[in-house]
Every structure is written in structure tokens, then in C-alpha cells.
């Protein structure tokens, strides 16, 4: 039962010390290669997030269809509201808090200078409260949202609609109306007696995950573990062979 002893004498041989040095070198190298890919993954994610947080003109990304990747994108638009075309969305809470007051959302048609027509959720008002709609040209900033999909088939009453659905709104205001809507966050000039801003449901847009770099990082680290396993198995096997020879 000298196998264990053999493993230790084996380790002391010059070739094995060389192999051990190579193993450590390989592990360090693979660790940093993995780290490099890991950092790249994070950098790509950060760059994509920064790019998606940068507000883009709404007419650049919105058309007949709304790309799911653009849900939650910050957008800007220069144009004017259409005071005649607005609806109230009934039974909405102020700030979305359960304890908050029940009121209504004000949704107006907005005509962008490019000609695009899109629904803008301007904010919350107490039921039947008065508010003003600026008639002059404004520059607005907001977050892009898809049409609300809940309460499917809900019947809108006389006082207003139940959900913000660009399809339904286009039947009231006339086509073509862009898909989805913008939740207003800024308006320049601000105007007076505006509805209270509503927090957007979806506030960050999806960014593509750099799967390839992420997997490369993991793979480099698994390679390092593999090298360690390989080294130890090799020591045990060559130790056993030596004892067979003796």
C-alpha cells in the first residue's frame, strides 16, 4: 500500500514541478481570459442600457406596429395636442397606490411635426375635474408603452374608456394612429392646470443579453477547472504506473 507515497515522490520529480508551474500559469491565464469576457458582457449590457435610456424621437421607432423591444423606451416628440380629441380613462388611482383617490386618466391625441399621430397619457385628474390642454406647439418627453391588454372586451361607457387601446382610440379619433401610447413625463412649455403625472408601468426597455460573451467567460473558467482535474488525474495515473514498473 505504497500508492499514496508514490504520488508524493511523483510530485517531487522535476517534470512534475514543471507541470505544476504550467498548470498554475494556465489557470491564471484562463481566469483572466474569463474575466475579460465577463467584463465585456457587463460593458455591452451597460452600453445597451445607456443607449436605450437615451430619449429618441418617437417617430423614429413607432409606426403601425410597436416593436416589443421598444416598450419602456424614453421618447421625445415636438408637435401639438389636438384639444378636440381626448378621452378619459375611468376608475384610475392617483399614483397607482391602493389607498389613493380614484379619478381618471386624461389621454390626448398628439400630432408630431413629422405627421405621426399618437396617444399621450397626460396624467391623472380627480373625477370630472377641469384641466387645460395647451393649444400651442409643445415638446414632450415620455415613456413608450404598449396598449393596455387587460379587461379584454370591456365596453366603454359614455363617460370615457376603460383601457388605453390605440386600436379602440383610432376608431374614435380616426386612423392612422400609432400603436401603443406615450406616458408623459416632461412638457415644454409646461402650461398650467395640467393633470398629475402618472408613473409608467414599464420603465426600462429590454436590452439584448450578450449570451456569447457570457458563455465564453464561463467556459474559460470551466477550462481552468478542467486543467486542474486533468493534472491530478495524470499524477495519480503516472504514480500508479511507476509502482507497477517497480
Amino acid at each position: 500500500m505504497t500508492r499514496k507515497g508514490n504520488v508524493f515522490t511523483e510530485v517531487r520529480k522535476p517534470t512534475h514541478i514543471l507541470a505544476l508551474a504550467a498548470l498554475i500559469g494556465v489557470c491564471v491565464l484562463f481566469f483572466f481570459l474569463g474575466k475579460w469576457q465577463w467584463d465585456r458582457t457587463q460593458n455591452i449590457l451597460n452600453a445597451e442600457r445607456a443607449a436605450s435610456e437615451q430619449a429618441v424621437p418617437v417617430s423614429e421607432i413607432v409606426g403601425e406596429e410597436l416593436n416589443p423591444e421598444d416598450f419602456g423606451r424614453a421618447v421625445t416628440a415636438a408637435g401639438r395636442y389636438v384639444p378636440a380629441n381626448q378621452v378619459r380613462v375611468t376608475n384610475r388611482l392617483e399614483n397607482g397606490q391602493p389607498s389613493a383617490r380614484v379619478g381618471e386618466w386624461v389621454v390626448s391625441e398628439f400630432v408630431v411635426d413629422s405627421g405621426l399621430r399618437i396617444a399621450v397619457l397626460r396624467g391623472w385628474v380627480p373625477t370630472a375635474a377641469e384641466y387645460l390642454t395647451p393649444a400651442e406647439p409643445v415638446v414632450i418627453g415620455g415613456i413608450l408603452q404598449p396598449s393596455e391588454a387587460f379587461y379584454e372586451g370591456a365596453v366603454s361607457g359614455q363617460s370615457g374608456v376603460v383601457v388605453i387601446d390605440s386600436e379602440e382610440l383610432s376608431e374614435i379619433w380616426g386612423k392612422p394612429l400609432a400603436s401603443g401610447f406615450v406616458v408623459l413625463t416632461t412638457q415644454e412649455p409646461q402650461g398650467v392646470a395640467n393633470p398629475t403625472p402618472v408613473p409608467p408601468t414599464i420603465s426600462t426597455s429590454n436590452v439584448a443579453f450578450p449570451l456569447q460573451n457570457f458563455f465564453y467567460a464561463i467556459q474559460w473558467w470551466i477550462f481552468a477547472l478542467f486543467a486542474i482535474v486533468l493534472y491530478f488525474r495524470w499524477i495519480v495515473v503516472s504514480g500508479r504506473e511507476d509502482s507497477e514498473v517497480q
Partner: protein
Amino acid sequence: MNRINTALLAFRIMAWVTGVVLAIASVWAALGYLFWDYSSEGGKPSLYSLLWLAHGWLYFAYLIAAVNLAFLLRFPIVKTVALLLAGTIPFASFYADYVMHRYVRNREELATERTT
């Protein structure tokens, strides 16, 4: 001998699967960087990226098959490492498969010569 033949078959399968994926991906990469717009971010089709992802994980299976075979044949460490690296060089794994088969066949012939 039987275990070696099984290991040899496993290695042959992995050498070819990994080799074919790597060959397609690297020829595609060469064409992409030479003639198309692959050096810019996001200029690559998703199938191309998927091929490289596939090669990454297939190479693990290749590593295991190759190490298994190398240990059964009691390969020295340098030869073993060369065999492992063959899975990362385009077309090298096909040659590795050929060499391993020739090696095992020669070994078998030597063994039968000794017994007869």
C-alpha cells in the same frame, strides 16, 4: 481493447461533430470579415453567433472524449494536450481522428503479433 474501441468511437463522433461546426463557423467568419460587415457590432446574423455558442459547448464534450481516450492509451501529457487543442483549430480534429485510429490499429496489430 473493448473500452478503447468505445472511447475511440466516442472520440470519432465528437471530433467530427465539433470539427464540422467549427469548420462551418470559421469559413463563415472568414467570409464575414473579408466581404461582409462583421467587424461592426451587431452586424452578425443570429445563426452565426449560435454556431459559435454551439462550438463552445460541443468542445467540452470533445475534451471529455479526448481525455478519456488519452488516459486509456496512457498518452504522455504533451500528446494529450495536443489532442485537446486539436478541437479548437479548424479541420485539425479530422486529422486527430485519423491519427488516433491509425495509432489504435497499429497497437492492435502489435498486440496480435506478440500473442501469435
